[in-house]
């Protein structure tokens, strides 16, 4: 059973002329233990996708199943508890609370679980040991270098022993040395059996992943399995060849938008035509055509 399953998830922002289609009927499933790198230009919907998977946002249409259970339509309270227990976030800008020390920052998710202070600080300390930050426990976030802060943030994401670790450009603010340390850490965590979703702009980082997803204009235009340590083959191809927008793609977008409009008949008609189109849109074939 996949740990994450998206069924034709779309996300629409705004309304009227300003309507933006951020995600266009994305279907995706991720199994336990996968290290998925999500690539794509800015505005391609990577972060929106991560927000929906991380239960920070709700899809406009479609279903999201976390561990086989529908999670996208739960009440916000239940979602908060799922975030607390099943999902760990790592952000580009670390997002540590500036007024708490590192130990308290790491222990924060446990505090919201209602764990006693002594126990949660002990557990946080153990996790900091794992990321090699034990000697910085009582530092304040501003006293740490970027790499150290990001490692502390990873410790915070891990402290609840989550099913999924979502890292949104974790190396975006780091130099190459710190990037390397952070990625090795993520690699280590992956080897322990955690599921990781990594958003990145850097093709080099796909070496750590065993699956790479390419996004463009809210659609998944490529999905390939790679061996860990190998640069994904599709990177160059997908990244540098211009993705052509066909009439079918436009129709797909219309179908997602039409779901907002009442009137079931049109929607289902469009949807049927779209499923056919999708099959023709396998990236490897497209890649072959291009080469």
């Amino acid at each position: 059973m996949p740990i994450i399953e998206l069924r034709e998830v779309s996300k629409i922002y705004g309304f009227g002329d300003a309507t933006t289609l951020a995600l266009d009927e994305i279907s995706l499933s991720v199994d336990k233990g996968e290290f998925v790198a999500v690539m794509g230009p800015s505005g391609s919907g990577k972060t929106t996708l991560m927000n929906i998977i991380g239960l920070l946002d709700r899809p406009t249409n479609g279903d999201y199943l976390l561990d086989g259970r529908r999670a996208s339509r739960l009440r916000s309270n239940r979602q908060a508890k799922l975030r607390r227990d099943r999902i760990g976030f790592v952000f580009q800008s670390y997002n540590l609370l500036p007024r708490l020390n590192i130990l308290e920052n790491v222990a924060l998710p446990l505090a919201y679980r209602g764990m006693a202070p002594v126990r949660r600080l002990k557990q946080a300390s153990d996790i900091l040991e794992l990321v090699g930050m034990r000697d910085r426990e009582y530092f304040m976030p501003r006293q740490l270098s970027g790499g150290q802060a990001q490692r502390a943030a990873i410790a915070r994401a891990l402290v609840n022993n989550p099913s999924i670790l979502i890292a949104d450009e974790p190396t975006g603010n780091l130099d190459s040395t710190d990037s390397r340390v952070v990625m090795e850490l993520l690699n280590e965590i992956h080897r322990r059996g955690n599921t990781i979703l990594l958003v990145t702009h850097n093709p080099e980082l796909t070496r750590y992943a065993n699956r790479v997803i390419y996004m463009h204009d809210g659609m998944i235009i490529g999905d390939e399995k790679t061996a860990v340590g190998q640069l994904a083959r599709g990177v160059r191809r997908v990244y540098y060849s211009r993705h052509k927008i066909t009439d079918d793609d436009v129709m797909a977008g219309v179908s997602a938008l039409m779901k907002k409009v009442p009137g079931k008949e049109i929607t289902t008609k469009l949807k049927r035509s779209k499923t056919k189109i999708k099959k023709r849109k396998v990236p490897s074939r497209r890649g072959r055509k291009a080469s």
Partner: protein
Amino acid sequence: MWSGNFKTAMSSLRQSKWRSTFTMLGIIIGISSVVTTVSLGEGLKHQIVGQVTSLGTNVITVRPGKLVSHGPGGDSLNFLALLSSSNLTVQDVTSLSKVSSATSVVPIDFVTSSAKGDNGELDNIFVGGTNGQFPTVIHQPVNYGEFFPSGDTDAVAIIGSTVANKLFGLQNAVGRTLYINGQPYIVHGVFQQSNNSFISPAQVDLNSSIFIPFDSAVKLTNGSTNILEIFVKSQDQSTVNQTINQVNSLITKNHGQQDFTALKQEQLLAITSNLINTATGFITAIAAISLLVGGIGIMDIMLVSVSERNREIGIRKAVGATNRQILSQFLTEGLALTIGGGIIGILLSFAINGLLRLYTSWQPIIDVWVVVLAAGVSIAVGIIFSIAPAFKASRKDPINALRGD
């Protein structure tokens, strides 16, 4: 969770020390002014109760003006009567002395408010005429010399301790001369320092008053009188009602109508407390407005703080804080501000209380219930005025909150 909230609240309040202090200032001022006002009222009531009990329960007070109106909704006070000029006459005093059950009749006649002595002139005092039976009604010991005897028409005076100090300094005042309206008077006795210093409801301070024989007072003012009140002492407790009836009928006969009020001590007490309660309530209401303004200040600052801490709220939500947990965090912060302000306000009012006792003749009393009430009010203000900002914080969309700083 609660202790964690408290810690978080304290650390974020410490972060903006000045802002927190000034926000609390509103609550501090509000709480301390309410507590001080109420304690002043309580103190005044206490003084009057003490004075009334020192008069004894069988003393009847006759005051000019119809104080109590008997309406369909029960007895009510006629405040205007307190301001009217006196219509009690010498004839009333004379006829009252014929009441069989009355052992003594003591008029208090206002003469003037200034007197001259060796060391200069006093302006803000009470100079009054009374008779030799005064000590039987007001049990205030005379330290040096003695009270003038009944029927005395000499130019003698009994003076309060403050007056003695001011006019004659440390020297013995007895036998010395002071001047009232230019007429010389010889000091016949000095009252002991008095704590329950007021003869209500005329609010005469015994310590700064001069009493001269009634007849000389009448002579001094060329026959005109301004009798503030007449004390009638009944034989004992059981004859009080009978005496009141006689007093009423006698003076009504003299005046042709009932334009005065004869009251037992309990009634007097009830009326004065009523009066003080009304005044205290009115001033407290004004003080409470400052509390309200303080509360609005708290709400203001909390709203600013919520929008400033967008990112923090986003992070907390991302790591799994529920709406309720965010709400309670901000509510705790607001409560910490108001409870802190409340405590400081109560302490401040204790300090004001001490200063008032030291430097004025007021004797404010801070009751336990006032403190409890003030604490309760500051908690209530905290909840009422931080619930809206806390709710706003809890409903923030985590994505927007994370994006904005």
